[in-house]
């Protein structure tokens, strides 16, 4: 028996505009209920929506980064359904002429390979408000979120396991954050996922089956996305094994909800009960035409994309895949790294300083690495000092800590704290000679070879370090030791 999992993903991304899609109300999180509303987003009669230009440009910028075709002509459509969180009784969306289509996104898989996921379309639409049902005999409605610009991205069914779904979602989060089009803050619900899952099963006598496509609604975390797809894989296979007539032909599509506490999906409704949205062109909004000049302007706002940057860090700077991943997780970190390297900081040293110290402090303080108090140029200088042997790694760590509050250059700080490494071979040779004369037993142990050699060598090196106040360059002392004890 062969079982293939087929998943397509719909993702809603909240755009980081200041105002709503069709009115000037502020986009705020956690504001008092029904305080960011106006006659337009309340759906009052006699009002007219007016398109937010920035929202449209953010949408096109994202679509370009997803390698989509950009429509030269798009329009708006009304998607009709009745629900208290939708005061107009229709959602303004895009139906047959989305602003972009036919793109792709490359995702890195866990085995180190890459996979291309095709993008069917990406279009703009407005969000609905919020209903609160808990513990009341009525429902409460807050319309602050109504009219928030959402970019809906729809993939082709190219995903084939739960991890791929999660990776695609994570890549998309990093992408929209890089592009500056969304904060993609999961806690504030800026990204919502709806996977469509079914199984293609070929049993041992060659018969083929397709289980019903199940759409899991409104997932708001990477973990819930991955778990719900895994659950559906398991559930659909179980159900088919009990009853081979559990197929798409017999049952059609169904919607399911995710219960995070129980870790399972719950049946919501079958296709027959699904909405008939009665789309039609929105008469209150005029179409949009995209000309070459405007498209070029938006194209110029697309930055180097995260995966390309990660590859450049690996190929050009010889960083490990892990370090490159850490450095490109946030655009601000990647740019800080690039800036430090541009200030003539050796790449690997810079990478170590940022990943081992800079990001640790930034995470503790909840800020970007560029905001911890040390400029990228200073990081570059510090990395240079390590590279040329002026200071060693542990001294660099101490200098780094001082630099958080001390704006002077790292060499001055190192000098003041007596952290400059002693690399003068002639001077070190004098110290070494004294040490060797004072410890004939250790010298004999090294020369004898065998078990005690290593320990005795370490002892002699330690004595030199002690005599120089920890400032001797251990590499040079080691070389001198080799020469003296041969």
């Amino acid at each position, binding site marked *: 028996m062969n079982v293939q999992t087929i998943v397509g993903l719909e993702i809603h991304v909240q755009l980081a505009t200041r105002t709503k899609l069709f009115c000037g*109300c502020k986009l705020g999180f956690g504001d008092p209920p029904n305080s960011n509303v106006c006659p337009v987003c309340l759906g009052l009669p006699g009002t007219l929506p007016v398109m937010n230009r920035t929202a449209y440009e953010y949408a096109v910028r994202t679509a370009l980064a997803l390698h989509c075709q950009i429509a030269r002509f798009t329009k708006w459509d009304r998607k009709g359904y009745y629900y208290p969180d939708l005061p107009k009784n229709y959602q303004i969306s895009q139906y047959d002429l989305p602003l972009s289509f036919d793109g792709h996104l490359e995702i890195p898989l866990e085995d180190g390979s890459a996979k291309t996921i095709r993008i069917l379309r990406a279009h703009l639409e407005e969000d609905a408000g919020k209903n609160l049902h808990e513990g009341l005999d009525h*429902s409460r409605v807050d319309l602050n979120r109504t009219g928030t610009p959402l970019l809906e991205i729809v993939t082709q069914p190219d995903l084939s396991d739960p991890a791929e779904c999660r990776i695609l979602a994570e890549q998309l989060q990093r992408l929209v954050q890089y592009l500056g089009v969304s904060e993609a803050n999961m806690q504030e619900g800026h990204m919502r996922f709806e996977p469509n899952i079914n199984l293609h099963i070929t049993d041992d006598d060659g018969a083929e089956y397709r289980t019903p496509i199940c759409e899991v609604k409104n997932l708001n975390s990477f973990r819930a996305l991955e778990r719900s797809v895994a659950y559906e894989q398991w559930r659909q296979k179980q159900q088919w094994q009990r009853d081979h007539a559990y197929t798409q032909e017999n049952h059609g599509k169904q919607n399911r909800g995710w219960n995070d506490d129980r870790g399972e999906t719950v049946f919501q409704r079958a296709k027959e009960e699904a909405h008939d949205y009665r789309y039609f062109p929105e008469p209150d*909004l005029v179409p949009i035409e995209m000309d070459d000049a405007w498209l070029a302007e938006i194209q110029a706002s697309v930055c180097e994309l995260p995966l390309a940057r990660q590859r450049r860090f690996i190929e050009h700077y010889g960083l490990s895949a892990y370090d490159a991943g850490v450095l490109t997780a946030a655009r601000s970190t990647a740019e800080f790294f690039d800036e430090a390297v541009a200030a003539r900081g050796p790449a690997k040293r810079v990478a170590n300083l940022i990943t081992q110290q800079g990001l640790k402090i930034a995470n503790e303080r909840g800020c970007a690495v560029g905001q911890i108090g040390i400029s990228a140029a200073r990081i570059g200088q510090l990395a240079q000092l390590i590279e040329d042997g002026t200071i060693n790694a542990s001294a660099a760590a101490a200098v780094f800590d001082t630099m958080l509050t001390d704006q002077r250059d790292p060499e001055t700080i190192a000098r003041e704290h007596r952290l400059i490494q002693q690399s003068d071979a002639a001077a070190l040779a004098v110290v070494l000679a004294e040490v060797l004369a004072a410890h004939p037993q250790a010298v004999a142990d090294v020369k004898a070879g065998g078990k005690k050699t290593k320990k005795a060598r370490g002892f002699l090196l330690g004595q030199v370090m002690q005599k120089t106040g920890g400032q001797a360059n251990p590499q040079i002392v080691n070389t001198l030791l080799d020469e003296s004890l041969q």
Partner: protein
Amino acid sequence: MSEKLTAEQVRHVAKLARLACTDEEIAEFTEQLAAILQYVGQLEQVDTADVEPLAHCLPVHNVFRRDEVRPSLTNDQALANAPQRDGEFFAVPKVLDDASA
């Protein structure tokens, strides 16, 4: 409009619009809507083979506003016309969460 509108279709549309209609009303609206559809259906006699579909009736495109915050209503203003309110919220009959888009 060669096929005649059925009472079943009218019932379906009424349900989608959350309208409760009596059988008499359904019969009445079926007739009225059928007449409207027949009237509009005359347009199908026009040969539109070489006519571009029209997305909007105005010869205008790209009407935008800048992404600048404008004052919203106060909470009391926003709720002034609400048939029912609960503090800062609109209050509506309890709904089961079966219709989020």
